[in-house]
């Protein structure tokens, strides 16, 4: 399985990495338990900054598409096929839209919602 990134594309590099790994899981090219290269190996092979690959891996781990098990390294998560179909951005947008709609219905103004959102984010 090969991964290809294009530095000319407007899409961020970590996103390209994430999408390709998710697509490879969905297409059956990567199966649960398959090992993945280390951050250092992949970053050096693709001539990328290590932080870019680390960010992609971190977000994939958050989405339970991959898992890191100490010295055994990183591999594809057992629920990766199911989790690869979930788009976190869409999920966040849907949940926020529902919350904003409910707040507006209860009489809150957009300005109040923005200030409250900003405060909550700062305090988290």
């Amino acid at each position, binding site marked *: *399985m090969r991964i290809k990134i294009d530095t000319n594309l407007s899409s961020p590099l970590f996103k390209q990495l994430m999408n390709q790994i998710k697509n490879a899981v969905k297409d059956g090219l990567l199966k649960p338990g398959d090992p993945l290269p280390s951050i250092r190996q992949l970053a050096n092979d693709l001539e990328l900054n290590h932080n870019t690959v680390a960010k992609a891996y971190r977000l994939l781990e958050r989405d339970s598409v991959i898992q890191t098990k100490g010295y055994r390294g990183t591999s594809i998560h057992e629920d990766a096929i199911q989790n690869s179909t979930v788009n976190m951005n869409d999920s966040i947008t849907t949940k926020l839209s529902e919350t904003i709609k409910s707040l507006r219905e209860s009489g809150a103004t957009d300005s109040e919602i923005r200030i409250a959102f900003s405060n909550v984010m700062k305090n988290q």
Partner: protein
Amino acid sequence: MNIDLLLYIVLFSQIMFLSYYYPKRMLIRIHTIFKNYPPNEFPKLYPESIDKYKKSAKRYQIMNHLIMVLGFGLIVWFYVTPRTGGWDQVIVFWYFMIQFIPNLGIELWSRNTHKTMRLLNQDAQKEAALQPRRLTDFVSKEFLGTVFAIYVIFVGFNVYIDQFNYPWFGGYLNLLIISGSYLFFGLIIYKAMYGKVKNPHQSYEDRKIDIQTIIRQILSITIAVTLYAMLQILMKAYGLESFKAISISLYFHVIGFLSMQWPRLDFINFDVYKDKPALTK
């Protein structure tokens, strides 16, 4: 056979092998690339003018010829000068270091070429395999086991020799030096496996062959270094120091032979160098 005569023969063989045969094989390889993969068809292979590369090849040849002449002079000098105090092995060692200089030049030449290739490379698309590389992908477990076993034997050997309280015996300093060598060689292997891509055009399959070649060479050299260290101690223990210069020369033969295991040219994918670069230097 007289020890001196044996030393002349072994040193002559070292000169012919490392300053004649080895460079000849290297130059045949370089000129085969020039001939079969010319710049008009494989422009990415030559980030700079081919004349510059031809000059470097010529320089390599001349340097080796001069070192060969120096070696013959050394044999004559050994013949006319009485050798005392073990200086012959020091001279053989430093002569090998001089023999190594042109090859160091080739290594620097290769590094600079790759560096220029990277600077000129305008390809926005980067590709990588999504599989981890492991040491056992490149060498057998048996080979790795042999390297480890030889290290353990070396440790045991040092512990054994230490019992005799030889005043000259370096004791655990030997272990420190050999362990340091293992760490150093391990670092080279690690860099080869996980380090940055040197040649931006090289196919992944060719890179894997390169990595395999480096690992095999390094592990073989590791074995040779350890065995040689044990041989040196044994020679000292048995009072065979007059053979030291001969043994060091034979050891350099082995190192030279191991370093000569290059990947076959017909196995390398040169098609990756076909497209014209966007920039020229």
